[in-house]
């Protein structure tokens, strides 16, 4: 490749941070290129150095970082090549490039806009810096750009503050800000990682459309191979600061060479997995539960249904009392008439976007939230327990049966307790055995999750995210529960670690005969774990069916939209943006009429399609009408 044809060419880039007593090299000898008008994806796990590379391209590295090598940027407008690393930090030349010729969008749309300035102010600021234009011109151009990125009322949006917009809308505003000067290069740093899957599809589509329209090159930084397959022309894989593999997307996906890339691809759950097929984690964890306790003895006449949930309803009153008078209460139904059963030994998946009420359901089951109405019954064969009203000894007893694994492995472990304290605390609370017994038990738990017993006296901060999540799982297992509620247990973890945790959970389920309620927004993950899947939208379960059924024959428009929005790490199955738009997945108004409440206000009820397949629809609708074929 001739260097003249590359828009961005990184040669032998090394980046190091000065640490106490030495330098930490986070990027070593990296080479990559971005062709004009093309998309190069930079793929790697967190901590692999990919974000640092993107910062060095714009010259916005932290002060403690030092970069060596060459970053050559050739502006297609005048054909001049500049070595960005040679420009003075924050000097005039680099500032003239930033925002104007190269722009960046960030992962967190929540924090990357200032909450104190209006959207319009922040976007038009770019014009004020780089162009000679009057205030009116800037406003006009900003509104035009807001219109381009999909705001229906740009002049109103101009005067809104970021916190008044949803996450997806904020990311659109960020894109408008980045593209308003029509840069030659857009650096997108995990642009959709923090968004729901349907919103992610919309943003990806928008980026692609604009990229074509403006003939702009893009450096897309992501860990999601599905996004890469749908967006990239060329792929660069980075691992521990070193480029492992680079090439056109075809070559990379069809014929991966490097062991790391192969491993990464095998570690992502996807919909085509055969029943019983196992993910290959990059680092597998051996599970040894023999020391823990014997598999729960089958109670002779144990009922099939372990947990039965009926008509749960929880609404939150948000009193939007403005500072300046105007008070009005709005009632938000977080959970609205949710019913389901969890069978003994199965894994029930609960899927939904943020705000769909899935976490509220889990909190109700843990008695952390009191529902307005409904009932929850737990029955393991030794008598029914009313989960919502249990008091005193019954409640203590219940706590040993139902335990929870949390999403965030960092904040769910106390930083001031050692692993031993964390794991033995449940045993102490329930007065199990003496010190020696508890220590024995804790050792068994450590073994079960594949952690070395020497780590018992360490604090959580000395573990990686995956290890911490394993400790969280061990804590949940300490009392020998029968039902484990896993609330997004892997969504904070890297892909490679994700597979490890999922496999661990699967193994534990098999060996200990556990029952799971597995909550996630990631359909592929739920698909890997669950026997049956319930899809939640707006506080209601809109569809519930066995795993194979819901994936092959989804009936509800929301489920179908959700499935269509998942990007596959497979070049032959690109996201179909046109059907995605048509289905209008997350907007109730665009669903087919039989799935919407009618004008008379008749409540929707779950219609039985057979084989345990239920879908929320109008009462008087014929089952045949629901099937789209």
């Amino acid at each position, binding site marked *: 490749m001739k260097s003249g044809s590359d828009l961005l060419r990184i040669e032998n880039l090394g980046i190091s941070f000065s640490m106490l007593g030495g330098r930490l090299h986070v990027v070593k000898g990296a080479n990559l290129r971005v062709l004009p008008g093309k998309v190069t994806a930079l793929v790697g796990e967190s901590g692999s150095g990919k974000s640092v590379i993107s*910062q060095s391209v*714009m010259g*916005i590295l932290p002060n403690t970082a030092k970069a060596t090598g060459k970053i050559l940027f050739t502006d297609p407008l005048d054909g001049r090549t500049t070595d960005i690393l040679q420009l003075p930090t*924050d000097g005039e030349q680099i*500032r*003239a*490039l*930033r*925002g*104007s010729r190269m*722009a*960046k969008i*960030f992962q*967190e749309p929540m*924090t*990357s*806009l*200032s*909450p*104190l*300035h*209006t959207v319009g102010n*922040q976007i038009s*600021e*770019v014009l004020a*810096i*780089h162009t000679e234009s009057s205030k009116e011109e800037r406003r006009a151009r900003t509104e035009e750009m807001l219109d381009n990125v999909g705001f229906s009322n740009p002049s109103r949006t101009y005067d809104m*503050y970021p*916190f*008044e*917009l*949803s996450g997806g*809308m904020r990311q659109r505003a*960020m894109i408008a*800000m*980045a593209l308003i000067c029509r840069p030659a290069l857009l650096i997108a740093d995990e642009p959709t990682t923090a968004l729901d899957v349907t919103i992610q599809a919309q943003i990806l589509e928008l980026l692609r459309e604009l990229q074509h329209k403006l003939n702009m090159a893009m450096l897309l930084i992501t860990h999601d191979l599905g996004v890469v397959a749908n967006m990239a022309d060329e792929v660069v894989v980075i691992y521990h600061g070193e480029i492992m593999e680079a090439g056109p997307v075809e070559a990379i996906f069809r014929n991966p060479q490097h062991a790391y890339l192969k491993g990464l691809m095998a570690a992502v759950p996807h919909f085509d997995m055969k029943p019983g097929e196992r993910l290959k984690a990059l680092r597998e964890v051996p599970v040894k539960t023999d020391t823990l306790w014997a598999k729960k003895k089958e109670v002779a006449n144990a009922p099939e249904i372990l947990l039965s949930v009926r008509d749960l309803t929880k609404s939150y009153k948000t009193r*939007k*009392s*403005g*500072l*300046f*008078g*105007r*008070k009005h209460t709005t009632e938000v139904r977080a959970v609205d008439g949710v019913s389901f059963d969890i069978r003994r030994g199965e894994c029930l998946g609960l899927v939904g976007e943020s705000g769909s009420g899935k976490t509220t359901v889990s909190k109700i089951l843990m008695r952390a939230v009191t529902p307005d109405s409904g009932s929850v019954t737990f029955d393991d064969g030794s008598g029914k327990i009313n989960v919502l009203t249990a008091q005193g000894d019954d409640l203590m007893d219940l706590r040993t049966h139902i335990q929870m694994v949390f999403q965030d492995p960092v904040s769910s472990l106390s930083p001031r307790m050692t692993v031993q304290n964390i794991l033995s605390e449940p045993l102490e609370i329930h007065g199990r055995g003496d010190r020696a017994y508890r220590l024995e038990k804790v050792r068994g738990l450590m073994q079960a999750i594949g952690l070395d017993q020497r780590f018992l006296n360490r604090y959580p901060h000395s573990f990686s995210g995956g290890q911490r999540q394993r400790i969280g799982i061990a804590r949940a297992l300490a009392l020998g529960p029968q039902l484990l509620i896993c609330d997004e247990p892997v969504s904070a973890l890297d892909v490679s670690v994700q597979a490890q945790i999922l496999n661990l959970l699967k193994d534990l389920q098999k060996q200990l005969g556990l029952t799971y309620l597995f909550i996630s927004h990631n359909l592929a993950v739920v698909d890997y774990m669950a026997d049956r899947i319930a899809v939640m939208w707006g506080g209601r379960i809109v569809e519930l069916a066995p795993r194979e059924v819901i994936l092959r024959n989804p009936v509800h428009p929301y489920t179908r939209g959700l499935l269509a929005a998942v990007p596959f790490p497979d070049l032959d199955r690109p996201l179909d943006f046109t059907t995605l738009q048509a289905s209008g997945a997350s907007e109730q108004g665009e669903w087919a009429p039989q799935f919407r409440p009618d004008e008379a206000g008749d409540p929707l009820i779950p219609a039985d399609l057979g084989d345990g397949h239920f879908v929320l629809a109008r009462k008087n609708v014929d089952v045949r009408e629901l099937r789209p074929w």
Partner: protein
Amino acid sequence: MLLKYILWRIAAMIPTLLIISALVFTIIELPPGNFLDSQIAEMQAQGETVNLQDIEELRHQYGFDQPPVLRYFHWLGGMLHGDFGYSFEYQLPVSEVVGERMWLTILVSFVTIIFTWLIAFPIGMYSATHQYSWGDYGLTLFGLLGIAIPNFMLALILMYFANIWFGTSIGHLMDQKFLNEPMSWEKARSILSHLWIPVIIVGTAGTAGMIRRLRANLLDELQKQYVMTARAKGLHPFKTLVKYPLRMALNFFVSDIGSILPAIISGAEITAIVLSLETTGPMLIKALQSQDMYLAGSFLMFLAFLTVIGVLISDIALAFLDPRIRLAGRSTK
């Protein structure tokens, strides 16, 4: 809308101040005895004879023979129409005793606040943007010294050196010949020329504290993503600093106003005694010592009033500064 909010807040101040007044009255009633008792004790200690008849008469005149609840309402009622009671010590109405001192106190405090901000802001910004540089370390050392040295100590040191080097006394807020004189050009000049010493002394600790807080807040804000966004736009680093992180850091600063007002007025007492300033501080301490209850009570009420006003000001300013507070009621999306 904003007007309605302000009116509502002012209305809410009334019960607050009533409760405070009851507390203040209870506290100054708590020590055994009253002004007359302590004066009798003092006179007896000096060997003077005390006419019990006179004392009884005075007791009746000042209302000490009435139950405390009645006296409280009497005091409260008086304050409402500007009668703050009678100072036993000075044999004058409280308002006359306090008079000029009040304005001088407000002047000193106000100038001190401005001084604090003028010094603290640039230094805090420098320290935060040059974290762990020699400049940051040096200023941090200076700041810690400022916090660690008690104000009165600094006052004594300054007085000592001023005396040795310049042969002048730096006490008082004005030349003594202007004391109790009506305001004139000469007097104003004299006050201004004396003002800087107490301002520096009283302001040091506050400045140092504020530098530390501003630095910490700015450092937090500088880590935030939106700063990176602004830099990626090509904004000049200094403009970035002022427009985004500094603006965010202002929130803490504004909410501080509520506590700054009373802290500066009550915190400067010992310094004021050392420097014999004509402010209210020394008077308050003396009034508390001698159980000159109406004088002390009025002072305490004044401090409480300032606190409540300060909180009000900072709340209103916050609403102006931060759209998240102002628009909390506007429907989202």
